[in-house]
């Protein structure tokens, strides 16, 4: 099967699954092991919460990814930032400026996930 045909078929296949079926199929047929991604608390508005909420954040991992997901009727957009715990506060302040420039409206959810990969053991 040609790669372009696979890409099309894969998309069609996923579209054909109901919301209920989606996670079940990937879990049972393809061995996906789902886990809840640790997330920072709450929903954020770019203009007023990225800084004010940061005091609530508990970080125990040395490295992690901050994933900012913007949802609106145009779909979703993501930005990823790799940060160490020490620079987290400064990073959020900096990223707030970047976000303000990139997205000027919409609601943001911020997710934190561990970057450390123990698989190489």
């Amino acid at each position: 099967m040609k790669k372009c045909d696979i890409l099309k078929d894969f998309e069609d296949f996923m579209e054909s699954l109901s919301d209920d079926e989606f996670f079940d199929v990937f879990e049972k047929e393809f061995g996906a092991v789902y886990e809840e991604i640790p997330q920072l608390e709450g929903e954020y508005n770019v203009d007023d919460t990225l800084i004010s909420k940061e005091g609530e954040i508990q970080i125990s991992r040395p490295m992690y990814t901050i994933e900012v997901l913007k949802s609106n009727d145009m779909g979703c957009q993501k930005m990823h930032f790799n940060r160490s715990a020490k620079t987290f506060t400064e990073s959020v302040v900096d990223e707030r400026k970047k976000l303000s420039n990139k997205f000027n409206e919409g609601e943001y959810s911020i997710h934190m996930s561990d970057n450390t990969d123990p698989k190489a053991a």
Partner: protein
Amino acid sequence: MHRMAGNEIINGFHGTNFDNVDSIINNGFVMNTSSKDWLGIGIYFFVDGLGDVPQEHAAEWAKAVAWDKIKKRHTYERYAVIRASIDCSDNEIVLDMTTKEDTDFFNEIRKKYLRQETNRNRIRKSNPKPTDKEKRKQWRPTNLDITLLKILRRRYGYKICIANMFIKISSEERRNGSNTTQSFPNCTICAVYDMSKILEKESCKEGDIKKNEL
């Protein structure tokens, strides 16, 4: 890269316990059943690409994995390397992640999956009306790439995957290596998911494991 045009049969090197050689030569390899391995369930070989010659990688690997960390002793004292010729002639069943074309293809698969998954997670959040706790849930496979490889195998018939990886190959690396993220690969491996793609096999190296190696 190493699988040049016209080079459709590649040599792979598999390190193992010397006692397994006869069985492998006569009866074939036993498929590794750990889906947590680098490229999913398959038979693994070191192949030409990054780092030392693959035969040496396989020998180092065979010696390193002989060590039982819990029992503090070698589980075997003699190792062997088996050379196998692997049929990569059909490009439609080989995912060669050392090439730009296949890497781009896999990344496109991953993007499509993540886009769908994100939308499903959003739907999960909004219907039925979520509690505060549910609102913050986002689910993602911890083994995303392995899952996508399995889809390529089961749904689209891929039988071989070649990739540059970081692997703690030697005893020294396994003893001293930390769990910190290793960003860059140090070897090239090939996972074969279908035994019929292994054409010939022979023992090409063997040796004793010195007791002071670990």
